[in-house]
């Protein structure tokens, strides 16, 4: 038996888990694990033909359990997601090594558990991505859920509560999927993809509806789709720094992967579109698109109100997931490409952002947006990474986030979906507002006295951040690189492929060439700089040498605007934040609590024999009548 490339990859990944488990208490464990991620990435790169339309690579491991065949294989879709997974794992783990790890240990954190949880997450994600049938998909899914739980819960305290909330949601999702799988199994007689493909074509409408609802709810919960989004932000935000970078980058995308695999590849968008909702003009696809759009808007505007940098980022992570789904369900060549490309882009900037914020926490000890400010003079590189990240997040040129969002907008325009288009843009505008608040409150404005002597983040943390920033810029400049992978993913799941070039997309109805756009942008900056710097030399003044309406500023006067940042906006929309979903969540909980109380009441009754006799009588009466 010769090992295939996939076997090799999974083997390395398993070894990483074992190394983290058994050698993880030694000092250089972090570096060892990081190197192993690097090896995994190399092993993944050996499969690079997959990213350019190569044939799927199977694993030699095939299990026969309880009459089911379990198999694993990698295709373009798996490869693309695995690339993002391993890339973010490598950089997050690298970031964690060295100073961060030492500080974490001093603060009472369990470094061993952290590396182990990371390794387990990566391993289980690879298993999920490799799944070759619906049952192995479910197994991988569950493994990912619980591995994620471990990483989220390990910080204790608030984090554990957030993780508990996560696992309850995740269980609801898992059970929805489990039920869906059972229904699929009954109608297809097997859980192999081929059999399901044939079965779907003969399925009745109610059956398909049921399956679409079950699967999209199940997978959507992991993505944090409305109305199942509440768990995600606290859970990700409370995870130890590099962990949240990793989770924020890729974890909830597993939901998107599964949606792609099951809803797009197996069920087919056409079939989903054929599910009309009676008495309305919309069908199941529109429904999904609207869910995606609400997932963009609400979490984004919730993010705007956060006063903790990590919470803010985590809420945006939910919102950005909406763009991916939106692009996917529009499902034309550009939209799907945009949605898929956004997965990659989001992973890069979200990881960079979380890392930058963690670097700030590392130096200042807080991520409270009201307790920071002016750090750009102390931590210029971190500022730069954060700036690159937020430009990506907001989807402005010249960073990569722009390209994917552009593709999504274009597809909405092509398909003639004005409301969705406007809603998507509202999300982007909200993001711009929110990320400005982030960068302003941390890096701009007045430097606090207690931060006057802090240093830039250590190089062990800086290098991964800079690498990410470089990737964000380069894939913004040359989006053709990831678009080639995206194109083979689209082919693998049966979607049409846009006509992409190295610099963007060619289309009869309007093209994009980022090389030119960025070229003129930087030329413009150059001219601007020429004009600006050729004028008289400027003099650097102290931050307290400032207009204050005639007052003199001193170091003990806080001269910074950070709280209630968009006061005018909140005057109007502040009342719209009703916490309806929180209320909904609470009422479900209360309902369960109430029912539980009732049930306990039944069991607390002393006259048990009364039940027995009445049941017996009732049943016998039922029989006789």
């Amino acid at each position: 038996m010769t090992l295939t490339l996939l076997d090799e990859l999974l083997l390395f990944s398993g070894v990483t888990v074992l190394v983290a488990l058994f050698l993880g208490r030694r000092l250089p464990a972090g570096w060892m694990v990081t190197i192993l991620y690097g090896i995994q990435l190399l092993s993944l790169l050996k499969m690079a033909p997959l990213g350019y339309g190569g044939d799927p690579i199977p694993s030699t491991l095939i299990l026969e359990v309880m009459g089911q065949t379990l198999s694993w294989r990698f295709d373009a879709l798996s490869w693309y997601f695995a690339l993002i997974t391993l890339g973010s794992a490598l950089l997050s783990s690298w970031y964690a090594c060295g100073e961060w790890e030492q500080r974490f240990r001093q603060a009472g954190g369990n470094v061993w558990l952290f590396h182990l949880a990371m390794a387990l997450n990566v391993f289980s994600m690879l298993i999920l991505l490799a799944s070759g049938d619906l049952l192995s998909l479910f197994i991988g899914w569950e493994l990912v859920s619980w591995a994620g739980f471990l990483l989220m819960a390990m910080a204790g305290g608030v984090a554990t509560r957030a993780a508990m909330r996560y696992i309850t949601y995740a269980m609801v999702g898992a059970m929805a999927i489990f039920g869906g799988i059972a229904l699929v199994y009954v109608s297809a007689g097997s859980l192999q993809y081929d059999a399901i493909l044939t079965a779907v074509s003969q399925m009745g409408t109610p059956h398909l509806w049921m399956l679409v609802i079950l699967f999209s709810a199940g997978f959507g919960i992991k993505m944090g789709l409305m109305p199942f989004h509440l768990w995600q932000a606290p859970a990700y935000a409370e995870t130890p720094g590099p962990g949240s970078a990793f989770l924020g980058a890729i974890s909830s995308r597993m939901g998107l992967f599964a949606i792609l695999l099951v809803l797009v590849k197996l069920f087919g968008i056409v079939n989903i579109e054929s599910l009309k909702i009676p008495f309305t003009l919309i069908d199941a696809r529109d429904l999904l698109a609207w869910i995606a759009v609400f997932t963009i808007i609400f979490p984004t505007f919730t993010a705007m109100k956060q006063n903790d940098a990590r919470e803010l980022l985590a809420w945006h992570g939910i919102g950005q997931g909406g763009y991916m789904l939106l692009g996917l369900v529009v499902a034309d060549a550009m939209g799907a490409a945009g949605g898929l490309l956004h997965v990659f882009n989001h992973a890069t900037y979200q990881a960079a952002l979380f890392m930058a914020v963690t670097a700030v926490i590392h130096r200042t000890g807080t991520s409270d947006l009201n307790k920071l400010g002016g750090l750009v003079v102390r931590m210029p590189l971190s500022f730069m990474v954060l700036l690159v990240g937020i430009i990506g997040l907001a989807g402005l040129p010249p960073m990569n986030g722009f390209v994917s969002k552009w593709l999504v907008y274009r597809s909405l325009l092509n398909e003639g979906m004005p409301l969705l288009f406007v809603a998507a843009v509202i999300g982007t505008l909200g993001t711009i507002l929110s990320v400005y608040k982030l960068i302003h409150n941390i890096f701009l404005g007045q430097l606090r006295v207690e931060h006057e002597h802090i240093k830039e983040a250590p190089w062990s943390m800086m290098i991964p951040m800079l690498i990410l920033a470089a990737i964000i810029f380069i894939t913004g400049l040359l989006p053709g690189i990831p678009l080639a992978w995206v194109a083979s993913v689209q082919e693998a799941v049966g979607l049409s492929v846009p006509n992409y070039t190295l610099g963007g997309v060619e289309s009869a109805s309007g093209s994009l060439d980022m090389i030119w756009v960025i070229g003129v942008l930087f030329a413009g900056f150059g001219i601007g700089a020429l004009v600006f710097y050729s004028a008289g030399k400027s003099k650097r003044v102290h931050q307290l040498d400032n207009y204050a309406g005639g007052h003199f500023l001193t170091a003990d006067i806080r001269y910074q605007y950070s709280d209630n940042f968009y006061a005018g906006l909140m005057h109007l929309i502040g009342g719209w934040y009703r916490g309806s979903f929180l209320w909904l969540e609470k009422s479900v909980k209360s309902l369960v609590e109430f029912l539980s109380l009732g049930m306990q009441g039944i069991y607390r009754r002393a006259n048990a024999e009364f039940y027995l006799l009445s049941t017996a009588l009732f049943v016998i009466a039922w029989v006789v009548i």
Partner: protein
Amino acid sequence: MNSMVVLPLVLPLFGAFLLPIIMRASVGVGLWVGPAILLYGCWILGNQWISGTAMPFSLAIGGFAPPMGINLYVDSLALLFALAVQLLGLIFWPFKLDPETARRQALMLLLVAASTGLALSGDLFNLYVFYELVAVATFGLISASSTGSAYAATIRYLILSGIGSVLTLLGIALIYSQTGTLNLAHLAQLAPEQLNNKLGLTAFLSILIGVGVKAELFPVNTWVPEVYATAASRVSAFLAGLVSKLALLIILRLLVLIFHQQEAIQVMLFLGILGVVSGELAAWRAKDMRRMLAFSSIGQLGMIFIALSIPDQAGLLAVLALSFHHLLVKSGLFMLADGWGGAIENLRGAAKRSPLAAIVFILFSLSLIGMPPLPGFWAKFTLITELAAQTSPLYLIGLAVFLLATVIEAAYLFRLAALLYRPVSEEKPIDTIPKPAGVSLVSASLFGVGLLAAALFITPVGELLNHVAGQAANAELYIDTVLAGTGGGR
């Protein structure tokens, strides 16, 4: 060789009567009698298992051939249960030395004997007798913990159990009055003509409710939380793990062999669903680990009843898988509760005090929830695929309830798991946190190892259970084996 099967039934029975006398003569010898008998029983049954699972056989007792005489029916299902009884008897053996030792050990042997009989008996009346014996033994064992609340719980159990027995007896009497026989195989022959009517249905339902008391069938299971919460954990484990399953075995045999009415199945499905709902919901608020486990056990048994309402081979496979999974897991959990009983709040930080126990608890919880690739997942998988395949909407409701219940189950089990890992509060010294005793922890870990082994060898285990289910679901084989006398009992 086949007749050796009687020994695991007879020896403990004799042992139970003789043990007090031996104990009086020599405690040292007496302490070894019980385990020795059980070990021997295991050995015999194990041998039987290895040599002849392929063919079931019937063993006539007292020289008369069935249907006139009484017989034992030994197929792989019966053997499996008998073996489980002996093994669990050994694992839960009441080692504790105190003035009550002799009584407790004798009761335990009696319980084992009666349970083995229940598993092997091929005759309705004998089933009833053994069932009563089990009841008597358990009353004794529960009240042996000699606390006020234990007595109160026992009395409640006693009353319920008593009325249940009366109902069972009523059902049996109805059957007898209609057919004139109590031999299961003979009844199976007669059933299509004589019991496929309202009378038969009434008989079945009375038996269902009567036996349901022990099988934790909703709503005649109200004794469960109190008894499990007050009895010694080992006893609770035995009750929840095994006795409930033996009661199920009776119903399973009746369903397969005699009663095929849709109504019977519907009632059971309905009560099963209610059991799941009530049990899991009640567990959600439980403030005491043992009560939580008790409620969870009600929920699990409800799931098994749901599975039992699909009485073909696949359904029986689900029943068996769920039963044995529950047996392993719940026994293990009750062993942990041995040290961790009492208010859940006290368990805060217990993982620090006993990391192994916490890990074992998480392992059991994961399997109970159905986390792949642990065995619990496969058990649930067989059940839900079966449920989804049914056409009646009640089954789909069952499916939905089952899935929702799993969510609740996960929530309360992991709330406890998270509590175990919470940091200990400052003023509380670490050694005041409860910790499972050494023996209990070892047995719990044993169950854990068993669980992991089952996960590792899931394919052979699955095949085995499928084979057992196939044999059990085959009513003709049963009739042929008993009445044609093909099995060599003589």
